[in-house]
Every structure is written in structure tokens, then in C-alpha cells.
């Protein structure tokens, strides 16, 4: 009888049984909920010792490299800061003219004037000097890695795992070892930023090379090219479009790391300015400083994307004219214009932003409080600690009784029975499991159940291999003694992913239906992805206080963007033939959306979900600044205690959770794609 059920149903049934057994036994066997301390391996100590040993081993080489790198960076900083600002502005504007004509030149000029007027010119130029060294470094490393992965298929898998690790382990986790390795100074930030920004380049180089038309390759071979000539003269140029995508992504990633680099210090850059204003909860000024980073990101992105396009022969005279004007201004500036560090015309604006924020908090305090309290009482607390702990008289007006538990499970069973009767056996089993999870609370879930459920999901989605990997990784977190903070992370990120999926999906759908909505949504998405997230912590905190709800909102603000983007893109890129065919057969627009567009967009939307999951986990470290107690906080604790092992272990645990969630979703997406024949 059991054999005749489908694999998914079998797995769901077993998971439910394991969950029920755990729930019944948990009150008697404490170790089901809490991994006994005596069974915890001193893994953080081992990791700490291993990392320290490794650091000592390669330190001389690393120090030499750091010393070497400090030179180009020093030169870049010297040129950018010591050159009079009118000349720098003129030169970069001239570059904009050369690459993209009047429109680009005007854009660059406006952006640089913003930086100058913000009062952060010197800090901005310091940041630019870091980016000028770290980006080429990351691009070069990415290029080499991509080529190696392409030429040596045997290495492709390990390289991809390495790229995943580089992108998912939070930078804060390895700051301390990096600092020991490279010594103090901006080079640490430079390397950290290069580690984080190289993977997009490597991935895109590999993808670009794999997509080179075989005919082009054959033509090169027939002309007698050897394999290196073939690579350099034929394949790389053919892959240049895809490589440009990687380049843009790398630049964005490098700029998003500016703040992290500043945490170490070593030089007075824009990231440091954001940190100082953050510390004073000075929203107006931190927003202005953050916008400087946004301006740089947009400017470098637009300029670099023009590199590969043919240039329309913009007049050389204009370039010389601009440089000449810059030089004249520079001479004038030396005598009459204020020094760059003395300009600060946005100060009143910052002041007004701050008072507006205070005013808003004062006027809507009661409403904001009500929102927060309701979200906490009816959603977050039950999800975290379970219904039986969350439902207490002070909040709900009544307590949780065993009669209620009976009623609750009775209702769930009745609903499941009805679903099963309609043939939806899988849905019925999942409903019962979900009911059990809500009753217990995510933070209190017995670990055997979590391990089993993850394994079952992996098995159904892809097979034994994924199941084994998922269980092994979660098991590692368990025996490292990081289970509790890890489950808190799952709870926070999971809730955020849930909200982002529903809300982001709805906004994406609306944007796909109405171009007017998309026109409003798109710039908001752009802003959310480029402004340093630290900046938004201040208003969130002032509205909703320190705590989980604020952390959740901060995570959602960042993680919702890919969901909106991919949903919109998937739904609006359905081939026209499909839509027309449906129209011809008399479908109305709602039917087209649900019957044609949605199934076609499903794989894209699932990819968006995957990105949302990764983003939600990566935000945990930043959310820790508003007082969470999960893995993100462990990373800070490790920084404070100088505990190298704990930092690396907590970072690795976060990467493992993100990786397991990501692979499970991807495997399901793959299955879905295959089922749809795409």
C-alpha cells in the first residue's frame, strides 16, 4: 500500500510521522529540543586554531601582497584628492563625453556636483580610489577563474562551490582573520571587497565562453590557431557581451562593500562617514552620505556599460574644452572658491529630513505602535515560540488550554481530511505538518524533525545526493552548538521570505499588468538595492523600536526587490504568440494571466524566490545592528570577543542555511521547468 504512493506523498507522510513522534516525546526527552551541550563538539575552538595556524603560515606572503597593493591605492588616492576638484570633475565629465556624448557628460557632471555639494568630496574620492583598485583586481581574478573553469571541466564543480561560499559567507565573519593576515589598513577592505565582487565576473565569463557559437570555434581551428590563440583571439571577444554583464555586477557588488570595508577603518572614506552618522542616528546626513555611494554606483555602471559599444565620434574639441575649463576653474578655486571639505550646502536639507522624521514619529506614534504590536502578537511571536507559549492572557485576553489544543488539531485534521477526500493527499499532509510547526514554534522545533524534513525535501526535489548534503550541513550546525541561533535565523529569514513572496509577488503582478505602477516601483527597487542598507535602519528603528519587528522590516525591504523584479520580468516576457493564441481562442485577460503567463513565468519567479532567500540570509548580519539574537549577532559577538573560530563558524552556518534553502528551491524549479518542457 505504502509503495503505491507517490514519492512526494511518502516523504510527506514520513515527515509528519517523525514530527508527531517528536512532539509527543519532546516533553519527556529534553534532548529532542535542545542539543545537549555534552554532545557539542568544540568545533569553534578547532576552527579558530586551524584558521590561526593557516594565517601564520601564509602571513609573510600575504603581508608582502598587501604591501604591494597599498601602492597603487595610495597613488590613486593621491591623484584624486590632491588634484583640484574642478579638474577632477572636468576630467571625468570629459570621459563621460567621450564614452557617451552630451547626455552621459551631463549625467556625470550632475552626479559629481552632488558629491561636491554634499560635503563628502574628500571621503568620496578616497572611496573611489579603493574601488579603482579593488574592481580591476576582482575583474582580473574573476576572468582567470572563469577561464580556468571553462578550460578544465574537472575543476568546474569545485570552483562553483567556492564561488557560492565567497558570495554567501558574510564578510563580517572573516574580517578578523583577514585583519590578522593582511595587517591593518585599507588593503583589508580592498581584499574583502574583491572577494565579494569577483564571483559575478567569474560566473559570467564561464557562461559567456560556454555560449560561444561552435562554428566560430571550428573556423578558428581550421585556420590553424592553437588553443591559446583560439581563446584570446576568438572565444573571449565572442563572449564579451556576457562578460560585460559580469563586469557591471562586480562593480555593484564592490560598491555595496564600501561600508563593510569602513568597519575596519584605516582610511577616512564615505563608508566611515555613513558609520559615524549611523552612530548618531542622524538620518538626514547618513542618507546624503549613502546617496554619494549610489551616485558612484550609477556613474561607474553607466560608464563601464558603454565601454564595449561603438562610440559615435564625439568631438575631441569638447574634451579639450572641458579640461581647459577645469584647469581655469582649478586656478580660480585655489584663490576664490572654497576648499572641497568646506562645502556643505545640504546641511539644512539634512536638518529638515531629521525634523520631518521626528515629526512623523510623534504624529503617528500610536498607529505605528499598533501595527507593530499586532504584528508581534498575532504573527511573529506565535511563529517563533509557538501557539502554546504565545497565547497568554496579557496579550490575547485568554491563555492556551489543552481544550484549545484539541480544537486546533481537530480543525486541522478536519481540513486535512477534506483535502484528502478531494484527492489532495500531499496538501493534506503538508497542512498537518504546518499546523504542528505553528503549534511548537520555529525556534522550538525538535532537531530530528528539522533534519528529517530537510532530507525529505531534498530527496523529493532531486534525490539522495541533495538529501544527504542537506542533512549533513544541518547536522554540522547542530554539533557545532549553533542550533538555537540558527533556528532563530531560519525563523527571521523564513518569515521575511514568506512576506516577500506574497507581497513582492503581488507587486510584481500589478507591475506586469499596469506599466504605470511599474514606473513608480522600478526606481524604488533601484534605490533599495544601491543605498547602503544601514541608512534605512534609522527610520525603521524610530518607527518600530529595537526588536524583531524592525529587523524583519529591514530584511524585507532588501529581500523583496528580486521577488518584484523577477515576477514582473517573468510575467511580462511571455512570448506574444502564446498570448495571441489564447486571445484567439477567446480567453479573457484574467485567464491569460493565470493560464498562460503564470505557468510560463514560473521558473523565472522561482529564480526570484531563490534570490530572495539568499538576500534574506545576507541581511541577517545587518539586522543584528537592531538587536537580534540569531547567527548575525553571533558574528558581532565573535568580533567583540576576538573569537576567530566563532566568527567563522557562525558565518559558515549562515552560508550553509542559505545554501540548503537555495538548493532545495533550485531543485524544485528544475523539476518544474522540466515538467513544463522549457
Amino acid at each position, binding site marked *: 500500500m505504502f509503495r503505491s504512493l507517490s514519492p512526494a506523498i511518502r516523504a510527506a507522510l514520513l515527515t509528519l510521522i517523525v514530527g508527531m513522534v517528536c512532539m509527543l516525546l519532546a516533553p519527556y526527552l529534553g534532548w529532542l529540543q535542545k542539543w545537549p551541550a555534552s554532545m557539542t563538539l568544540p568545533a569553534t575552538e578547532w576552527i579558530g586554531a586551524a584558521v590561526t595556524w593557516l594565517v601564520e603560515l601564509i602571513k609573510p606572503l600575504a603581508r608582502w601582497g598587501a604591501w604591494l597593493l597599498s601602492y597603487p591605492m595610495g597613488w590613486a588616492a593621491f591623484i584624486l584628492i590632491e588634484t583640484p576638484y574642478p579638474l577632477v570633475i572636468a576630467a571625468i565629465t570629459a570621459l563621460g563625453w567621450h564614452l557617451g556624448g552630451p547626455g552621459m557628460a551631463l549625467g556625470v557632471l550632475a552626479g559629481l556636483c552632488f558629491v561636491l555639494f554634499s560635503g563628502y568630496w574628500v571621503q568620496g574620492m578616497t572611496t573611489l580610489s579603493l574601488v579603482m583598485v579593488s574592481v580591476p583586481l576582482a575583474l582580473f581574478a574573476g576572468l582567470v577563474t572563469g577561464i580556468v573553469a571553462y578550460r578544465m571541466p574537472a575543476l568546474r564543480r569545485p570552483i562553483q562551490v567556492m564561488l557560492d561560499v565567497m558570495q554567501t559567507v558574510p564578510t563580517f565573519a572573516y574580517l578578523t582573520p583577514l585583519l590578522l593576515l593582511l595587517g591593518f589598513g585599507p588593503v583589508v577592505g580592498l581584499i574583502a571587497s574583491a572577494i565579494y565582487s569577483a564571483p559575478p565576473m567569474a560566473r559570467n565569463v564561464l557562461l559567456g565562453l560556454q555560449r560561444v557559437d561552435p562554428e566560430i570555434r571550428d573556423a578558428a581551428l581550421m585556420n590553424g590557431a592553437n588553443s591559446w590563440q583560439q581563446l584570446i583571439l576568438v572565444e573571449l571577444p565572442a563572449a564579451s557581451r556576457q562578460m560585460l554583464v559580469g563586469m557591471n555586477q562586480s562593480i555593484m557588488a564592490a560598491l555595496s562593500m564600501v561600508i563593510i570595508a569602513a*568597519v575596519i577603518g584605516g582610511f577616512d572614506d564615505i563608508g566611515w562617514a555613513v558609520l*559615524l552618522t549611523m552612530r*548618531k542616528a542622524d538620518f538626514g546626513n547618513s542618507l546624503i552620505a549613502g546617496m554619494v555611494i549610489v551616485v558612484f554606483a550609477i556613474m561607474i555602471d553607466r560608464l563601464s556599460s558603454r565601454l564595449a559599444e561603438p562610440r559615435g565620434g564625439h568631438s575631441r574639441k569638447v574634451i579639450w574644452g572641458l579640461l581647459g575649463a577645469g584647469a581655469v576653474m582649478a586656478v580660480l578655486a585655489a584663490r576664490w572658491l572654497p576648499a572641497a571639505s568646506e562645502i556643505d550646502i545640504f546641511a539644512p536639507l539634512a536638518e529638515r529630513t531629521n525634523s520631518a522624521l521626528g515629526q512623523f514619529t510623534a504624529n503617528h506614534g500610536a498607529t505605528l505602535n499598533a501595527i507593530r504590536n499586532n504584528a508581534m502578537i498575532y504573527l511573529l511571536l506565535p511563529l517563533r515560540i509557538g501557539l502554546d507559549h504565545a497565547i497568554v492572557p496579557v*496579550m490575547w485576553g485568554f491563555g492556551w488550554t489543552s481544550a484549545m489544543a484539541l480544537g486546533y488539531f481537530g480543525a486541522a485534521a478536519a481540513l486535512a481530511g477534506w483535502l484528502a477526500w478531494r484527492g489532495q493527499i500531499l496538501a493534506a499532509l503538508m497542512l498537518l505538518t504546518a499546523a504542528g510547526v505553528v503549534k511548537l514554534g520555529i525556534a522550538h522545533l525538535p532537531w530530528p524533525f528539522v533534519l528529517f524534513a530537510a532530507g525529505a525535501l531534498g530527496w523529493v526535489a532531486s534525490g539522495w545526493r541533495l538529501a544527504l548534503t542537506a542533512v549533513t550541513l544541518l547536522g554540522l550546525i547542530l554539533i557545532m552548538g549553533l542550533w538555537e541561533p540558527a533556528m532563530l535565523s531560519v525563523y527571521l529569514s523564513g518569515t521575511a521570505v514568506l512576506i516577500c513572496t506574497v507581497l513582492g509577488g503581488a507587486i510584481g503582478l500589478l507591475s506586469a499588468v499596469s506599466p504605470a505602477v511599474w514606473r513608480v516601483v522600478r526606481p524604488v527597487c533601484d534605490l533599495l538595492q544601491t543605498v547602503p542598507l544601514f541608512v534605512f535602519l534609522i527610520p525603521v*528603528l524610530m518607527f518600530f523600536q*529595537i526588536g524583531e519587528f524592525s529587523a524583519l522590516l529591514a530584511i524585507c525591504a532588501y529581500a523583496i526587490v528580486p521577488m518584484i523584479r523577477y515576477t514582473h520580468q517573468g510575467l511580462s516576457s511571455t512570448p506574444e504568440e502564446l498570448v495571441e493564441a489564447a486571445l484567439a481562442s477567446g480567453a479573457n485577460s484574467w485567464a491569460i494571466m493565470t493560464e498562460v503567463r503564470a505557468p510560463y513565468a514560473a521558473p523565472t519567479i522561482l529564480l526570484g524566490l531563490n534570490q530572495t532567500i539568499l538576500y534574506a540570509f545576507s541581511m541577517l548580519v545587518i539586522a*543584528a*545592528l537592531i538587536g537580534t539574537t540569531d547567527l548575525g549577532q553571533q558574528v*558581532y559577538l565573535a568580533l*567583540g570577543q576576538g573569537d576567530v573560530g566563532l566568527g567563522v563558524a557562525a558565518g559558515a552556518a549562515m552560508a550553509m542555511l542559505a545554501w540548503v534553502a537555495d538548493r532545495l528551491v533550485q531543485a524544485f524549479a528544475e523539476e518544474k521547468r522540466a515538467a513544463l518542457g522549457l
Partner: protein
Amino acid sequence: MKTAKATVLVAMAGLFATPLAAAELGAVDEPIKLAVNEWTGQHITTLIAGHMLKEAGYKVEYITAGYQNMWPAMAEGDLDAAVEVWESNVPQGYYQLRDGGRLEDLGALGLDAREGFVYPAYMEEQCPGLPDWQALAACAANFATVETLPQGRLVDYPGEWGTPGADRMAALNLPFKAIPAGSEGALVAEFKAAQSQKTPLLAVFWQPHWAITAFDLKFTKLPEGTEACYADASAGPNPDVTGDCDFLPTRVFKAAWPGLKEKWPAAHEILTNLQLSVEQQQPLMGAVDVDGRPAEQVVAEWVAANESAWRPIVDAAIR
């Protein structure tokens, strides 16, 4: 060239001085690297110290450095000194390096730092009996939020600074639940939000800090904090535990790379003798954080107007 000039300067100073124990200047060609950390008070102290070193004939380089991360760098001489280190939140790593002889404690700064439970002044109407700590027991419910019900809510230090708030509350048997703040910015944002709505708030905070005057914060009066109270359970109102009293005064001190003494003997002496009081630092902090003036300018004015506060220390070291 610079050395010659400095030697002349020392020689000239010597003419007018009584032959006290003067230190060698040392390597005046190389800049002394002072750490600039994340908070304004530290900027002010550092700028004053830097000014004194410059007056003594040294070159000074200010280097921004993350307070939590900079200690290994100082142990290796990448940074030479940090002139405002707070015992309350200095990372464990500092003590390990100091005990290993890789960092040197240059003595107290004289900044009489105070930590405690603070509340906005308007809470005295909402919770009669404040500032006395016993009033907190009765009006814990006033401070409660959804996450802490039925207990009151105490905003504690960020996790990596330790949990002094939670420890005090437990020792004093007060019905408060401590919520870690996550960061200093988060603490200040809480004050701002509470002030604008006049909502209840109790937090662990410290003085000197510009927020104390900006948000009119008051300290709760706890049983007097003594060494005995922290060592002996019977001292203090709760006979069963230690630490059932006010915070001990936080030691604020100066720390340096141990090579400082040999490389720049006079600088070592100047930094060792450097003193700055709350009364001196607090108005300067206000000028920077509340009035929005640049710290360099504020400090330049102060050192010009208060020569008597620092000149003797410099003179004593280089004569």
C-alpha cells in the same frame, strides 16, 4: 632637517627650564599614528592629544580605526596609540594582548565616566518615585512592550559589549527584561523616538555622551556601587547575589603599542600624563554633535583658549 629643528627647539626650551627629568624626543621624522575611533568624544580627545604631540615637535597621523578590530594592529605597531579606551566595551582581545605584553596601558584619562540606567526626564511624572530605583519595581508595567510583557523593557548595550543591564536587573530582582540594542545608533534612535512621542523608555547608557543633555536623560539612583558589592553577596540589598548595586565607575584609559616608549620617549610621557575631564570634554562634544561644527575647529579653539590645561604636560616632557 626636522630633527635639527626639533633639537634646537628642545635646546631652547632647556634654557628656560629647570633641569627636570625630560625625555628624549626620539624619531621625530616618523609620524605617530593615533587611532580615530567611531565616537565624537574620542575624536576630541585624540585631536587634543595630537595637538600636544605636534607642539612637542612630533608629526602626527590620524588613522580611522574600528574600535573592535584595531587591537591586533596596535600590537604590531601599525597604530601607535588610542587615547580614549572604555573598559566597559573594550573587546576581550585587548586584555589578551595586554596580558601578553603586546599592548601597554598608559593609565587613566581622568574622564569620570558613569554608566547606569537612564530615562527621559518626563518619566518622573509617569513613574513617581524616580530617580530612586525602587520605584522601577512598581511601574515596570509602564515600561512594558509586547515583547517583554508582563515585565518592563530595558534597552541593554549591544550584545558584543556584554549584558550589564540584564545582570543588574537580575541581581536587584527588578521585573525587567533586557533587550540588546544591537548598536549605539539604535540606542540613540530609541531616545529620539521616545522623546518625540513622550513614550516610556529605560536604557543602559553612559556619560559623557551628547545624548544625555540633548534628550534630557536622568540616571536612576541605584544602591551605591562598591567593590565590596561586586565581591561579596551579603553587601547590597539582595543578600544572595553579588552585583546588586550601581555600576562601578568605568575606567577610561589610554593604550599604546609597547614600542612607543622606546621610539618616541617624550610622546610616551605626554600621552601617559594626558588628562581630560568630563567638564572639559562634554561642551566640546555638544559643539560638534548638537551644533554640527567640525571637531577640528572646535578643538583648535579650545587648545588656543586653554593652554594652561595642556601646555605644562608638554613642557615637562620635552624639557
